[in-house]
């Protein structure tokens, strides 16, 4: 007999979500639904009628960890719609900003996943807040990496959280020589630290997945060798940056994309029949609670070629570097592997930047209502924004953010794992649930969803 267990809220990721899991007698997940329960904010609807200059600044506020991705994808979707080519040095500044944000985001994710792992060769789980070594130095290194990422982003982008420097047609300002040198020095320091940090993380991740059992709230849980495996495809549009509909050979195809409603994808109404008070911290949802993922999930299900796909660091490495490690382990390792690449690429971009170069396009068209899209490879994967701008007004705006792509894929990846490890699988995706929950629901049934949450 299957039982239903619910972990709500899930923790150590951005935003508000829950896991509804149908498990067998051994506690192995048969069907898993990972749902956003972050209230819908409706950015796409309120964008309509606003100027293309405003909307990216609003879209940025969808998320404070990866605002860069939204700001850039939205700006570039507008630029793609109005067909505005930006100067090369503006591109360089955007690339630097993008990479800096990715470095900070990886470092932040390290903090979030470390408590799942063990100090290699011991039975001690890692508490990133402990003052004891060896964890203390690791935590300090992570903080320094974040500081470096945020500072570089701040210089190139005006601010690291919600960049001010970006504008339709390029950037408001180029940076000074002094600022360029500062970014360069910081990136060099970051490169050394990221080597050390990635090495440390990969050792810890390998050690964790090689264990036979792991401890979750005092429960001894077997570690499957196939934790987090799925058979969905991968989607990535660039190793570092992204692509737009203005590219000669765009790496994303709007015709292969379709969005399904959560209604068609998630499980219907059920009752919680398994409760585990020991689950850290505070136990799982009470027995007898009614759950209804179909109605509660706050995201759409984007599909590529009719299937949910995985996006993120692993998808990028699979697509551009023949990476072949599967499952949660592969995902976490792929993310660490991006660390150094980011800094190498960033150093190249800083080198290429001409600080006396022009950063605003000479001519910025008002738009004729054409459809334009831009993808930005956010820390968590492909972030595609689609826009129509007519006469300097946004007519249509849509955001397909990484975690939205990953919701359904991750739900699949839960199958076959002990339910106690469902959050570990979920964290492998570095979920950003606020990002995922940005749209307002359009059709009749789904309107109820939005209303329900707003009540």
């Amino acid at each position, binding site marked *: 007999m299957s039982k239903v267990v619910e972990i709500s809220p899930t923790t150590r990721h951005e935003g508000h979500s829950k896991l509804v899991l149908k498990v067998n007698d051994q506690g192995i997940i048969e069907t898993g639904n990972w749902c956003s329960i972050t209230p819908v904010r409706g950015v796409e609807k309120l964008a309509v009628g606003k100027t293309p200059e405003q909307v990216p600044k609003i879209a940025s506020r969808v998320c404070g960890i990866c605002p860069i991705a939204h700001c850039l994808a939205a700006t570039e979707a507008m630029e793609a719609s109005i067909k505005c080519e930006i100067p090369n040095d503006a591109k360089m500044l955007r690339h630097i900003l993008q990479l800096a944000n990715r470095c900070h985001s990886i470092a932040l994710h390290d903090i979030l996943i470390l408590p799942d792992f063990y100090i290699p060769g011991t039975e001690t789980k890692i508490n990133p807040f402990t003052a004891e070594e060896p964890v203390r130095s690791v935590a300090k290194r992570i903080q320094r990496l974040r500081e470096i990422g945020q500072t570089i982003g701040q210089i*190139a982008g005006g601010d690291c959280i919600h960049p001010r*420097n970006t504008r339709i047609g390029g950037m408001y300002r180029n940076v000074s020589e002094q600022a360029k040198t500062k970014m360069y020095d910081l990136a060099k320091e970051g490169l050394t630290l990221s080597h050390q940090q990635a090495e440390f993380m990969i050792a810890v991740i390998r050690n964790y997945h090689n264990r036979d059992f792991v401890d979750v709230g005092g429960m001894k849980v077997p570690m499957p060798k196939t934790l987090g495996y799925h058979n969905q495809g991968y989607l990535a549009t660039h190793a570092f940056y992204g692509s737009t509909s203005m590219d000669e050979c765009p790496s994303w195809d709007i015709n292969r994309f379709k969005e399904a409603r959560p209604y068609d994808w998630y499980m219907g109404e059920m009752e919680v029949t398994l409760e585990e008070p020991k689950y850290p911290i505070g136990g799982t949802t009470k027995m007898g609670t009614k759950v209804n993922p179909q109605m509660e999930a706050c995201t759409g299900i984007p599909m590529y070629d009719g299937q949910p796909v995985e996006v993120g660091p692993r998808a990028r490495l699979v697509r551009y570097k023949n990476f072949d490690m599967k499952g949660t382990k592969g995902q976490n390792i792929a993310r660490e592997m991006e660390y150094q690449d980011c800094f190498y690429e960033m150093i190249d971009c800083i080198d290429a930047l001409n600080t006396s170069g022009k950063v605003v396009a000479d001519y910025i068209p008002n738009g004729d209502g054409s459809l334009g899209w831009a993808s930005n490879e956010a820390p968590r994967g492909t972030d595609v924004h689609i826009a129509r701008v007519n006469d300097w007004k946004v007519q249509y705006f849509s955001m397909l953010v990484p975690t939205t792509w990953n919701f359904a894929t991750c739900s699949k990846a839960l199958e076959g794992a002990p339910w106690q490890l469902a959050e570990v699988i979920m964290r492998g995706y570095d979920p950003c649930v606020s990002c995922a929950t940005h749209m307002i629901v359009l059709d009749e049934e789904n309107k109820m969803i939005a209303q329900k949450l707003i009540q």
Partner: protein
Amino acid sequence: MGAELGNYKSCVSARSTDKELLKHAQDGGIVTSLFAFALEEGIIDGAIVAANKEFAAKYPSKCMMDNSNFDMIEPWRPIPAIVNTKAELIAAAGTKYNISPNVSLLKEATRSFGLDKIGIVGTPCQMQAVRKAQLYPIGMRDVGASIALAVGIFCMENFPYQSILQLVEDHAAMKLESVKKMEIGKGKFWVYGKRGQVVQLPLKITHKYEQPGCHVCLDYVANLADVSTGSVGSPDGWSTVMVRSKIGDSVWGKAMAAGCFETQPIEKVKPGLELVTKLANEKITKNKKTLEGRATFGVGKALRNPYI
């Protein structure tokens, strides 16, 4: 009263020992010399000052400007800028008697300009803004800790650009382009032309042109600066300098040791602190009245008082 001059460790009459610099400075060249010294010593790695049209033409990337605003760049309109050399400092020396939003560059200084140690000059209200940004950094992430030296200039009142235009072009009958220097002193508004003309306007003419916001200002000698300076109290070509904070004391001490300034004890010069105190008192008393008036401005309604 008694608190009108704020807290300070020492007060002197001083002027720069750099003769070339003095040619461009308003008074004793304190601001320009001190920043030049601080730049040289690495105490600051850039300073926010009020530059002008000529400066903006020469160093456009050092100014806060939107391309669309080129029309706003007029003679004698101050343009906030970030300077990194003594030559740039000198190009931005001298008082512009209208509003220069220097604080608008404060955040940008730490961003695209890449500064770690900012020097900033400003009127007393701007020193207040700097301190408030340090203590309550609203939208001012990472700015507070980057402020390395805040130099305040005394200020009785300021003017909008249109006022200066009218005062100079109508009342003093001079084209703004041909003005070499403006000065408020000895109860007059002085306009010096490049061809040697000198026009003095009685201050009672200028009153109606003042920036209304200055009428609730309760600080004359930049009480919150690290070092404050002004002309009042010292002879022509000299400045009154008040060293206030630990930072100010340290920088001033080093600059003195390096021979940047010659000084006289403030007690020895005429008119000295007595006049500074008197003027500070007048400003504060007058503006306190204005503030009190706001409490009963409407019928049964008050205007806002930012101090409470």
